């Protein structure tokens, strides 16, 4: 049996295609049973997330199976096969194994290193286990994929750094304040980026958001969204005394917050730290402010710099992860290969036993041997059989490169293909 994966992801297909091909809710179980009904498919498992739809299978003949699966996908989702050509990819054997290892380790994700995918792989596997749609091959493959993903996570730092501006802002806020619970955020201006950053901060524990916008009404709307409050723009300096994090995006053509202002504000705050995020271009906060004690100012370029260096770091770590995966794929391939020879070994043993049984039967019918003598003959026969098939079975179990050839040869020599 061989591993085959058919699928599409955020790189191969747009979201419109992905959502059409998703196996959501009940469709997942229906899909699994429909797949197993295909003559070529022996084991199957489906991973369906918003960024990927992938079918993992154990099949006998990948080429045939590929055709059948493609047909299945097209008819199951009622999409013409022609449309699938661009979106679908198929991998077999070691390429397929490498693929699932990379997926589970989050190397194939839109944001490399994001942690959700491993959970999604686990859930998909559990469902398939419950529905008993997987067997020896898939079970081993998925268990291995999960353990490889864990290894990648502990041995590399691929999942460690924030790779978006909002996340970088949250990470920095955490390194300044530790716990964001009880901290208050002031939004100066109501730009989209500011809103996004504020939302991230809220998701991470910030519980008070104040909006100071030039157009008061727009400020009120946004404040309602956040269950915060709006203040008139002119009063933002008084508000800053109580704000731990200030996100600035007013769209003003020049500085709005000056060093002198902040100097006074810090005195009133008794030097409690302030984190200023200036995402406006041109900048709204005088960069000299970063020189004040307990004031930390990051503008868009600074945050982008953090993101870039994190991304570089991740890519470096991703290379380490690929190396780990390369080794693990080899190990798995060896196991699959050894699996391949098992039916031949079994068939060979069975054939030998059949012959010896039949010959013994004939001999005992023709002669008058007592039980003791029969036992002795039986022992001799089985010794001869075992010794004769020992070397071919040992050769089959050995780790050799041209195992396929060897299997074919042994099957031919011993005429194992007949039945």
């Amino acid at each position, binding site marked *: 049996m061989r591993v085959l994966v058919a699928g599409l992801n955020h790189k191969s297909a747009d979201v419109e295609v992905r959502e059409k091909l998703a196996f959501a809710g009940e469709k997942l179980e229906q899909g699994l049973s429909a797949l197993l009904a295909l003559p070529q498919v022996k084991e199957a498992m489906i991973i369906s997330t918003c960024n990927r739809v992938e079918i993992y299978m154990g099949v006998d003949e990948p080429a045939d199976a590929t055709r059948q699966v493609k047909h299945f996908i097209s008819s199951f989702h009622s999409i013409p096969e022609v449309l699938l050509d661009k979106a679908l990819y198929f991998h077999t054997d070691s390429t397929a194994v490498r693929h699932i290892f990379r997926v589970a380790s989050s190397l194939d994700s839109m944001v490399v290193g994001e942690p959700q995918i491993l959970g999604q792989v686990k859930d998909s596997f559990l469902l398939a286990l419950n529905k008993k749609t997987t067997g020896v091959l898939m079970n081993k493959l998925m268990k291995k994929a999960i353990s490889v993903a864990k290894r990648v996570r*502990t041995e590399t*730092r691929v999942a*460690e*750094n924030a790779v978006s501006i909002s996340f970088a802002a949250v990470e*920095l806020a*955490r*390194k*300044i*304040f*530790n*716990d964001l619970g009880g901290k208050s955020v002031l939004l100066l201006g109501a730009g989209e980026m500011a809103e996004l950053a504020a939302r991230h901060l809220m998701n991470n524990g910030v519980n008070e958001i104040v909006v100071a916008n030039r157009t008061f009404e727009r400020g009120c709307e946004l404040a309602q969204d956040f269950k915060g409050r709006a203040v008139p723009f002119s009063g933002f300096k008084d508000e800053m005394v109580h704000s731990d994090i200030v996100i600035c995006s007013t769209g003003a053509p020049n500085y709005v917050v000056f060093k002198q202002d902040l100097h006074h504000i810090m*005195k009133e*705050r*008794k*030097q*409690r*730290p302030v984190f200023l995020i200036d995402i406006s271009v041109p900048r709204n906060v005088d960069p000299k402010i*970063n020189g004040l*004690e*307990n004031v*930390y100012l*990051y503008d868009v370029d*600074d945050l982008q*710099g*953090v993101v870039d*260096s*994190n991304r570089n770091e991740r890519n470096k770590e991703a290379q380490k992860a690929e190396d780990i995966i390369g080794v693990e794929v080899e190990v798995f391939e060896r196991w699959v290969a050894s699996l391949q020879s098992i039916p031949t070994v079994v068939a060979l043993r069975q054939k030998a036993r059949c012959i010896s049984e039949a010959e013994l039967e004939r001999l005992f019918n023709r002669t008058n041997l007592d039980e003791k003598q029969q036992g002795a003959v039986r022992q001799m026969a089985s010794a001869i059989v075992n010794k004769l098939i020992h070397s071919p079975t040992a050769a089959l179990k050995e780790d050799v490169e041209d195992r396929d050839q060897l299997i074919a040869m042994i099957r031919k020599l011993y005429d194992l293909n007949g039945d």
Partner: protein
Amino acid sequence: MGAITFGISLVFYFCAMLFSLLDLLRSSKTVPKLMLTSAIIGFGFQTVYIFYKGFSLGHVPFVNPREATSFFAWCIFLLFFILAYRYKVGLLGSFITPMAFLLMFISFLLPSEIKPLSPMLRSEWLGVHTVFAFLANAAFAMAAGVGFMYLVQEHYVKSKHLGGLFSRLPSLHVLDEINYRLVTAGFPLFTVAIITGSIWADNAWGSYISWEPRQIWALVTWLIFGIVLHARLQRGWRGRRAAALSILGFLTIIGAFAGLALLQKGQHVFL
């Protein structure tokens, strides 16, 4: 027995220091555990050593520079364990254990001879005074170590280069908080040490203070940390300033300790 237990604890502290430095180089789950385990074993042996010495002398053993320095290290490790347990902050050991090991090593190099204590000084105050004084000094030493961590982390955040230890060092808030707690703990301990010291001096020599160098230095240290606390509470001197001041305060202590130990003068028993 004494020399063996001391030697064993020195070796384990050395291992703890190596592990703590290794921890700086690359993050790992096992290295910090190995570091803590070696430190705890070393600490255990040193505790046995201190009790053994104390019983054989009949009074607390911290009466010569060697014993005093090693007890200083013992106090630092004690506080380190408490902090590591209470705050679980990353890399604390890397900044503390080298300092504590260094003290142990200095102690190891000093002469071990203990002169018989003059009957005048034999009193319960000896134990109370020294234990409080060293616990306070250990708290100040830790405050300096944590203050140094604060300065390093603040440098990362301010300079916007978030590489190196940035992701593994604790947040500025936590470092500032620990620094503050240590100074607030150390200050009253130090005050008690000064008071018990004066009472002891009064009992022994008939006056609370004799203006010898050691006592003057103690008052200077007390004043510095008093200022650190006052400035923080009244004027919001937190963060970088508090960190820098606590480092300065600790350097004063070390300076006094080393300077006066070299001079070997005054009525202070071991100085």
